[in-house]
């Protein structure tokens, strides 16, 4: 697993993908941060983080689109699958590498807070708990999205299909968050908000540690990682 993790991580930065992703991520996050906190004269990063997780719908598929599809297309998966590594090891190695690149960018974007802390008005200082909560929640949502992306990538040989497919699924989650309030039926609304990744985000932005949400996010990611493992194993059986 470590070998795959290291190779994957290095491959992000020996090809343009890692740089392109980082550039786009930092550009988008920088723009949104400037717009939603600095320009809005607010020291609260919750609106920034809520917008970012919508941005993730377009951003994170870039990170995961090739993880398995490229291996299939170039038949390099033969090496991995005939090595003494379990399917779980392969999937986790790849998943954690994507997650690390994402987390690295998220960490980099924390630099913004410094400027915020410096210029925040005295009557509304930056709240450490709320800020940390926002970034932590962003990390959790990202981890879920990357799991979805890795899973979709394991289904196809085509990077573009993987990216667009992932965006479609993530857009569904975003759509629930945006339009759920317009649904008349109480039952449907409740069910949809239950599976919504976005609705669990809110407590973190108030600086509350929502253990139920944490568990939800972790299990959501775990389910998709598990599905990816199944797909990888199943490849032998068809």
């Amino acid at each position, binding site marked *: 697993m470590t070998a795959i993790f290291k190779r994957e991580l290095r491959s992000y930065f020996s090809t343009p993908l890692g740089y392109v992703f980082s550039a786009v991520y930092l550009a988008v996050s920088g723009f949104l941060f400037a717009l939603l906190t600095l320009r809005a004269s607010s020291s609260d990063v919750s609106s920034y983080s809520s917008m970012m997780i919508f941005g993730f719908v377009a951003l994170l598929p870039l990170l995961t689109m090739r993880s398995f599809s490229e291996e299939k297309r170039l038949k*390099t998966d033969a090496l991995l*699958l005939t*090595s003494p590594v379990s399917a779980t090891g392969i999937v986790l190695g790849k998943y954690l590498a994507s997650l690390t690149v994402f987390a690295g960018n998220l960490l980099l974007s924390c630099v913004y807070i410094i400027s915020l802390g410096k210029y925040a008005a005295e009557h509304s200082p930056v709240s450490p708990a709320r800020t940390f909560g926002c970034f932590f929640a962003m990390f959790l949502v990202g981890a879920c999205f990357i799991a979805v992306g890795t899973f979709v990538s394991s289904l196809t040989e085509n990077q573009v299909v993987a990216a667009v497919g992932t965006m479609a699924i993530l857009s569904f989650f975003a759509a629930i968050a945006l339009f759920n309030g317009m649904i008349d039926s109480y039952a449907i609304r409740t069910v949809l908000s239950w599976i919504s990744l976005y609705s669990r985000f809110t407590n973190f932005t108030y600086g509350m540690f929502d253990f139920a949400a944490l568990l939800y996010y972790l299990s959501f990611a775990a389910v998709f990682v598990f599905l990816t493992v199944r797909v990888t194993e199943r490849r*032998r059986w068809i």
Partner: protein
Amino acid sequence: MIEVRNVFKQYGNVTALDDVSFTVNEGEIVGFLGPNGAGKSTMMNIVTGYLSSTSGEASVCGIDVLENPDEAKKKIGYLPEQPPLYREMKVSEYLNFVYDLKKCTLNRKAHLDEIMAVTKIANVKGRVIGNLSKGYRQRVGIAQALVGNPPVMIFDEPTVGLDPKQIIEIRNLIRNLGKNHTVILSTHILSEVRSVCDRILIINEGRLIADEKTENIARAAASDRKYTVKVAGPRRDVLRELRALNGVRLAEDTGDGDADGAVFAVEAERGIDIRKQMFNMLAAKGWPIMELTPRGMSLEEVFVMITDEDERRRTAPGTRGGREG
């Protein structure tokens, strides 16, 4: 060393492998032979644990490939049809990655240096794989299979895309590996198996139709009963005299020929060497022999013969005995 028992492989409705069984002993080099799409790669993928069989068993060094895949995979070095190379990596980086992936315990530097020396890629170790020529990539693919010095090596068409000099080098390499490894290689080039392999398995339409020592197949191919003879003399007269010769089963005018003479195909009766008689008779007539070539079957012809025979056996009514049920 390698044991395959009653392996079936079904892709949907297509049967890729149909009841294949064979054993490969330690230190043997076995050639898998068959036309494209016969099931060679599928068979190799099953032995390496890349694919599973629909039914049947495969084991390597006594370890079942499905029951204990991680242990079995440690025993195998595998070069698939398309070498599994990461194009953005440097050669040395790549081999180090494979070293880690295979959980190797040998001395890293010494082992990888040795592999690069054996496969003659040391001079490109700092280069990016994507920029290498096909021959070098193929050799990096072979190097990858050697990492960890596994007792069993499986090569799927190892010499495809190489130039003649490289082909000879790779064949020598495989022959050397065969001294202390068990090797399976697949190819559809018959001269390749003849020059490298101890034993030949012929596979056609998913079924194993021959399992022979290479010498036996070569012997079947090298018949001493057929000759091509070029004679400087009148075509019709020569043909008539050849046919009249004792021990000649068949003589035909091939229609070929040039200013030197006409070309005839002659086949002797079983167990009779007709060369002396033929020479004496033609010399007496004053028709000199310009060329005399024994016309053994090429391995290609042997292959066609074996597959045809097999097909005839299968399609002939009433002779399917034992295959039903």
